[in-house]
């Protein structure tokens, strides 16, 4: 009986890794699509989002089955409950990646050095998503904590991008629509950063039993 339980827990672990990997794929594809204006990559990001939704339902089912049939306690219960929380954050990451991909279809990145920071932001956010999934895979507490620190950096970058867009619009109002779309992209990226932080927090909770927001 226990053996079966362990097997199912391992399966949960694998499915979460797969879901995390899908999120990484989605956000990288969306960012590439944004930076290179690649229609195919944008499509790939939207496809990945659908797969992520599917994965979320599967993991959810598995968690429910584990909770009902095995009645886990202590650490196992923590693992499963944090998995349930993590998948909703991962699913949001997938959604926002798809939203970015959708926006890139009609927003080209204007040629200009002013937009460089949105690329930096995308890179930082991809790094955060990768690190948060990595911290889960490797059960690495330090890596999870590094993700919180990176979030501050992403927030600062968001402010910077916002200022750049304001300057751009002030200088030339013809880029109005593009500027607003880019602001939304930046906001989505910033939100993805927040979700990655949440994932890292749940990793910490599942490892230590203390959620960092309680400190």
């Amino acid at each position, binding site marked *: 009986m226990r053996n079966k339980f362990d097997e199912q827990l*391992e399966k949960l672990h*694998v499915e979460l*890794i797969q879901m995390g*990997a899908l999120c990484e794929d989605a956000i990288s594809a969306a960012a590439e699509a944004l930076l290179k204006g690649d229609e195919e990559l944008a499509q790939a990001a939207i496809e990945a989002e659908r797969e992520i939704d599917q994965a979320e339902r599967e993991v959810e089912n598995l968690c429910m089955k584990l909770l009902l049939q095995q009645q886990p306690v202590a650490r196992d219960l923590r693992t499963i409950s944090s998995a349930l929380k993590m998948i909703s954050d991962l699913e949001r990451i997938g959604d926002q990646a798809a939203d970015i991909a959708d926006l890139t279809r009609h927003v080209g990145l204007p040629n200009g050095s002013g937009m460089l920071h949105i690329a930096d932001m995308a890179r930082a956010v991809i790094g955060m998503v990768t690190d948060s999934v990595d911290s889960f895979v490797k059960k690495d507490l330090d890596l999870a904590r590094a993700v919180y620190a990176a979030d501050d950096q992403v927030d600062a970058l968001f402010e910077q991008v916002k200022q750049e867009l304001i300057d751009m619009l002030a200088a030339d109002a013809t880029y109005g629509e593009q500027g607003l779309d880019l602001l939304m992209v930046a906001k989505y990226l910033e939100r993805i950063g927040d979700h990655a932080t949440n994932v890292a927090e749940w990793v910490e909770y599942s490892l230590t039993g203390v959620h960092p927001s309680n400190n």
Partner: protein
Amino acid sequence: MTKRIFRSIMAVSLSVLLASLVLIVGVLYGYFQDRVTAELAQSTAYIARGVESQGMDYLSGGLPEDRRITWIGAGGEVLFDNWQTAADMENHGEREEVHEAMLLGRGTASRYSSTLSQKTVYYALRLSDGSVLRLADTQYSVWVLVLQAMQPVALMMLLAFCLALWLAGRVSRQLVEPINAIDLNEPGDEAPYEELSPLIGKIRSQNRQIQRQVETLRQRREEFNAITENMSEGLLVIDQETRVLSHNSAALKLLGCQRPVEEGESVLALDREAGFRRCVEEALAGRRREELLERDGECRRVFASPVEQDGVQNGAVLIVLDVTEKEQREALRREFTANVSHELKTPLTSILGTAEILENGLVKPEDIPHFAGNIHREAQRLIGLVNDIIKLSRLDEGSPAAQWEAVDLYRLSRSILDQLAVAAEKKQVTMTLEGGSALARGVPQIVEEIIYNLCDNAVAYNHAGGSVTVTVSDTPEGGRVTVRDTGIGIPREAQGRVFERFYRVDKSHSSGGTGLGLSIVKHGAAYLGAQVTLESEPGKGSTFILTFPKIAE
């Protein structure tokens, strides 16, 4: 086993005890019944005497009440009964014992009494007047006697039972103890019971066999590990649930995983890139798959194959190869092919165009030499290019059919400078040769090719009025040729690439040349084991230093 033996012993002792009990009861019963009858006869005779002398008075005169006394007249009518009212009783003449007594003088019977509704023993005696005196005693008294006699017997039996209980426990333990004491891992030579010797022997031989097999398996495993550990290819064996069953350290290194793999960990925890995941999924679905993973400029090729056993798929084997170098070479080759086609096409297009104009007669006769000269120049360039490519590919194959010999670098440099004198004069570049004789071992054609290309470049990429200085020296490391020019120099970012095929600092191709010269230098030097270093500053000039390996004495 102890319990079983205990139970058997207990069952045997209990049945023996029970059997003896029954036997004893049987014997005692017969004995006591006889005794009861004898006592009855005695009492009857005694009372009979009293009745003979005193008649009814004796009977009613307070005889003990513990036995039933009946006096029956000669006609069978009951005259007296001390337990019942005589008048109410029916005629007893036909009762077995009475009848017998009337006929024979005395009679006994043991039957069910309808009067007392009990099993009863009777004794009847005929008196002198023909009447019959009968005494009755219940069978019950026999049982009371038997039971009384049985009490000590039962006590004995109980003691015997307890003793049996204790002995059975002890004996069964003693029997089983030596069997339990056998060390199954290393049974001694002596079996505790003869009957067990074949079993012990079998266990011993099987133990040895198991040990041998375990040892063989361990050795095989060690061999397998040694082999896989020494493979530069990464090897991973996974089961249907993606758990890693076996892996070598190369696999972890190639997948960029620094920590050791935990027991039962999923392979996806090691790498979760999309391509890798596809490989794993496909292989576990029973299809072979091959993917190229690129990460941080490193290329890995992953081959995934399903593993089947008896027609059931139960895992997959993944092989990870480092193909970074191969991919880079492949990229270089593709670039080279594209460059070659382009470089070959440029002069050909020029020749074709010129020839077409000539063919159509659009050229004035006096212009023909100019056009023909054009064709000549382009054709020459084409031949130069093809020659260079041939030289390069020979160097690539590493098999120029040439003899290695000692080459005098100074003399060789002198002749090269002579060959280039015309070109240098045209560019107004002065060439000087310094230093002295130095020897190097090598293939003369290749050495000449290298120095020629260096000097040719030094002249070609020079300013008018510049100079080229070739210095030949014999250093402790070996013969050295230094070619220093005062030319245009090479920008720092291009210095790493000038040895690449068809790479040109000046993309406009205005300076002529094939773009293969320095590539020939690099490959030639590599073939001869010589070192080429470059120092350059844009606008001031470049210095190429060619150092040959020292000639072994």
